[in-house]
């Protein structure tokens, strides 16, 4: 890269210390610069405006406060560290040396809607982790005389109003994000792992194994998802653990189908034949040679599935079949507001908007990944 030795280097260091992203901006890397500036400024804002909340970490001693504290530290550290190191000596790699993932990332970076989705997602996770610092209320505690604080319209004190128990809706949405996002994440993890394995085994072995597994997949797909889910969850008393496991165990079939389709064509390729000729065992061929080659479609399915699972989880908790009551989740906040929809529209409206924005950002990322990871679309 540019020969920024000695003097220039010191200048850049001081610029970075002043505000991360400044040197990048000066060098004309607008995207890197702006995102660093945004990260640093938002972390500083949390530190300044929520200073008493941050101090409370040491007295309250609750784990979510510590998580928020670590996130804040990590955010600040990352902003300054990246501010110094980002864009130094990189981005000069020739196409020949770039890995498949690097090429995909470059494609992804050019896709503006997808990058917007990515920023939204990062912001969402940061907000979720920092939740205790971003509000001065507690999600499930009624602070005052209930008759005086219930159903207050959105105002400066209560950004999104209060619900029928006088709890701050904005706070409940912040804390609810935690449930919705983590349930989604873990459930997608389970279903993707299971689906990939079943699909790969089914496609690789073919014959009877394939027939049996695929008939099972057909059977599971015949059930309307939500109906199957509410049936199983209702039978095993709803709790967060049950919801995560059941979601994970019922949503894998579509991944299995996608993977199987890919494997069917991979199986006939020369490198698999070579692996077999070398005398490698089937588990090794499947895990080391087949699965890495289907990761592209699997990642796309996972991102799109994440949006889907958040919608499904919202539906479940709307029906009262997810996290049990005082714990907020986006779905059950909507249920809380349903009774008084006309008197207090804000209770149901805002969590729904949160769901829409989350799902939109995952869908944007998913679409972008599909375009970036499919070489056929790249030509």
């Amino acid at each position, binding site marked *: 890269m540019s020969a920024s030795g000695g003097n220039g280097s010191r200048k850049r260091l001081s610029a970075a210390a002043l505000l991360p992203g400044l040197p990048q901006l000066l060098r004309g890397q607008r995207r890197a610069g702006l995102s660093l500036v945004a990260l640093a400024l938002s972390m500083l804002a949390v530190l300044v405006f929520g200073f008493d909340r941050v101090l409370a970490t040491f007295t309250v001693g609750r784990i979510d406060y510590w998580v928020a504290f670590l996130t804040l530290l990590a955010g600040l550290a990352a902003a300054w560290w990246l501010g110094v190191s980002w864009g130094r000596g990189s981005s000069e790699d020739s196409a020949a040396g770039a890995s498949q993932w690097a090429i995909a990332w470059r494609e992804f970076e050019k896709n503006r809607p997808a990058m917007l989705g990515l920023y939204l997602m990062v912001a969402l996770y940061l907000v979720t982790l920092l939740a205790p610092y971003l509000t001065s209320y507690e999600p499930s505690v009624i602070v005052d005389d209930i008759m005086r604080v219930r159903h207050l319209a959105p105002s400066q004190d209560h950004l999104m109003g209060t619900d029928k128990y006088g709890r701050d809706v904005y706070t409940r949405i912040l804390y609810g994000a935690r449930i919705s996002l983590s349930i989604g994440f873990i459930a997608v993890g389970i279903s993707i792992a299971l689906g990939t394995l079943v699909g790969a085994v089914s496609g690789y072995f073919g014959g009877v194994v394939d027939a049996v597994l695929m008939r099972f997949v057909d059977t599971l797909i015949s059930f309307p998802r939500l*109906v199957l889910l509410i049936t199983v969850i209702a039978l*095993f008393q709803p709790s967060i653990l049950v919801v995560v496991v059941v979601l994970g165990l019922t949503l894998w079939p579509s991944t299995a189908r996608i993977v199987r389709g890919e494997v069917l064509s991979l199986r006939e390729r020369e490198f698999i034949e070579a692996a077999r000729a070398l005398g490698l065992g089937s588990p090794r061929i499947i895990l080391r040679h087949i699965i890495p080659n289907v990761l592209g479609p699997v990642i796309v399915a996972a991102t799109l599935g994440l949006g889907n699972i958040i*919608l499904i989880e919202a539906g479940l908790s709307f029906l009262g079949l997810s996290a049990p009551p005082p714990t907020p989740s986006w779905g059950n906040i909507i249920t809380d507001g349903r009774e008084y929809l006309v008197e207090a529209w804000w209770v149901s409206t805002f969590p729904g908007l949160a769901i829409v924005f989350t799902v*939109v950002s995952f869908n944007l990322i998913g679409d972008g990944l599909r375009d970036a990871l499919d070489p056929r679309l790249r030509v």
Partner: protein
Amino acid sequence: MTAYIFRRLLQAIPLVFGILTLVFVILQVAPGDPMAIYMHPSVAPEVLEQMRENYGLDQPVHIQYVRWLKSFLSGDLGTSLTQNRPIAAILAERIPNTLLLSGTSLLLIFAIGIAIGIVQAVRQHSKLDHALTLGALFIYSMPSFWLGLMLILILAYRVHWVEWWPEALKFPPSGMDSVNYDLLSTWGKFTDRLDHLVLPSIALGVSSAASVARYTRSSMLEVIRQDYIRTARAKGLPERTVILKHALKNALLPIITLLGLYLPFLFSGAVLVEVVFAWPGMGRAIYDAIQQRDYPTVMATTFVFAVMVVIANLIADILYAVVDPRIRYERERR
């Protein structure tokens, strides 16, 4: 053609068995004693034993399984614990309502989706196209039950505060018909039912409509590039005829397969939307049954839902084969 339909029917049979088996397994694996709801200090243990015997719960699992298969296949879905009448009778009242709601939704999905898809394809890369794509993205990411609540809030309540809002665009917030339904004339009944259908079917269908639009757009774009369309244009046909008569026919072929794909999705959504709009369908039935811990009804409704999906898929496949001779030919040769 008959051979194809017959073969397709044969394929559906193991699927129904699979569904039955899965439902049975879920019931067996679930914790808790099915007799628990009868347990009460005033009920003698002997009576419980007797009931257990009556229900066949003292038999070994495989015998219970065979009995279960037999009774379900003969249409006996058991007895509801809370309503004390055959579940089949309860569901018989509910199924038409769910079909009415999802059928209307389906019509809406395809009518709106295809229309928007065509507009987008014809005006590819225009501002309108981008705006519609963006709108579809948001609508596609909306939870149906939330959209339902918002529709109720705005179109059933808030509009009453607006003086100039036309009476025809104010909709009832819930239920299937008005209080005076039985007193209305046939036409009055029809419009009343239609009035009640509008909001729930929009809430249920709009997200699928967004995805139909997406599919129509891409399938239309593919067709428009083909030679025969250029020929049609070259011989001087008006653009309208080219698009609506020549291109649309072929572009719609792959859309038919979506029909089978959306039904499970639609039924899932129906559970939520029926709860929001107090629509007395199967989804509402399964929700109420869960609230009252009426597990036989829950299981039977689940089973019926799944069978309805299998039947719908069958119809979609056959329709596809009717419309597209290539499919029929290929599948018959296999």
